[in-house]
């Protein structure tokens, strides 16, 4: 008996998946091709800051989202809130402690679909503390770029960002929203560490 049509279709699909997986596309972005902002609350008012230096690498194949990888490295000294006094405190020992913890990292493997958005459940290492963090984003491919736009919310105190008097949430809120809008380009260098 000849193989059924269903089986042949399944095999063809498998072969196709295998070949796409083999060339899962690698993408990258940094501060020159996107923005990485944060919005925190201070004395009841929300203000925005941004990171002037970061690197994003994405390995993604829409047919195999479970194999996707997202790796982000942020240079904490590049945190900029347009006020030198506040930046000094932010970079200092009580907040980011950049001398001791120069970088924050986020690593996620495998994305899930949620409507139009993708959801990554990865681990954020910030100020030497590693905790799970969910990041939601949308991916919009165009001819040469992949636009990645999304957000997450970090509870700063989970990572010890705000020591001593700053650990109170009366004047500095605990949740900090992180927003990013990246134009990813095909990766030209080897995978990030």
């Amino acid at each position, binding site marked *: 008996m000849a193989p059924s049509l269903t089986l042949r279709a399944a095999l063809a699909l498998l072969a196709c998946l295998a070949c796409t997986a083999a060339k899962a596309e690698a993408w990258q972005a940094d501060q020159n091709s996107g923005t990485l902002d944060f919005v925190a609350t201070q004395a009841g008012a929300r203000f925005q800051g941004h990171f002037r230096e970061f690197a994003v690498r994405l390995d993604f194949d829409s047919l195999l989202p479970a194999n996707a990888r997202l790796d982000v490295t942020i240079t904490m000294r590049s945190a900029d809130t347009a006020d030198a006094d506040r930046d000094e405190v932010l970079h200092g020992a009580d907040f980011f402690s950049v001398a001791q913890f120069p970088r924050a990292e986020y690593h996620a493997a495998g994305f899930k679909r949620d409507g139009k958005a993708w959801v990554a459940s990865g681990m954020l290492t910030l100020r030497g503390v590693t905790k799970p963090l969910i990041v939601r984003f949308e991916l919009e491919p165009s001819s040469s770029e992949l636009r990645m736009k999304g957000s997450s919310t970090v509870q700063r105190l989970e990572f010890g960002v705000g020591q001593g008097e*700053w650990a109170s949430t009366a004047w500095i809120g605990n949740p900090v929203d992180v927003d990013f809008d990246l134009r990813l380009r095909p990766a030209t260098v080897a995978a990030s560490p």
Partner: protein
Amino acid sequence: MPVQQTPARYGSVAQTLHWVIVGLLIVQFTLASIADDLPNGLEKLITLARHKSVGITILSLAILRLCWRLVERPPPLPPMSRWQAVAARISHAALYTLLFAMPLTGWMMSSASNYPVSWFGLVQLPDLVAPDPALKRLLHEVHETLSKILIAFAGLHVAGALKHQFLDRDGLMFRMLPWRPR
């Protein structure tokens, strides 16, 4: 003719606004001088946040007061020389201008330094200008200079009131006091 004429006085709304603003201005100068002496830190942040909330309160009261002045005209001045009447008018206009200029330059300065203003943590106000460190430094100078001009005009205002009360004895100060002259 009565020896001492009892002048007409401001109504209770105008008087309340006047004295509440006086009290809040004293709070403002106190908070500002406390903040100036504090190192960068949470206490400074809190002191300045209160300074901003009080400043926005003064701005709102100043708007209310100006509107009320259009509804209920100020009582006439007691008889005085022309230059005195003109000087009083100029100093009152200056004080009103400063009641607006002080909070507005403070608000702009806060926006320029990317510290959006919140009124006692209840309402976040819109930013008046985009973050700009150079503009912030300029506005800081302007805000501080205006505060010195405000002190000068407030001093002149008090000196004038005291002169009328104790040298001219024309009862002018009762225009802005809730009790009657004895």
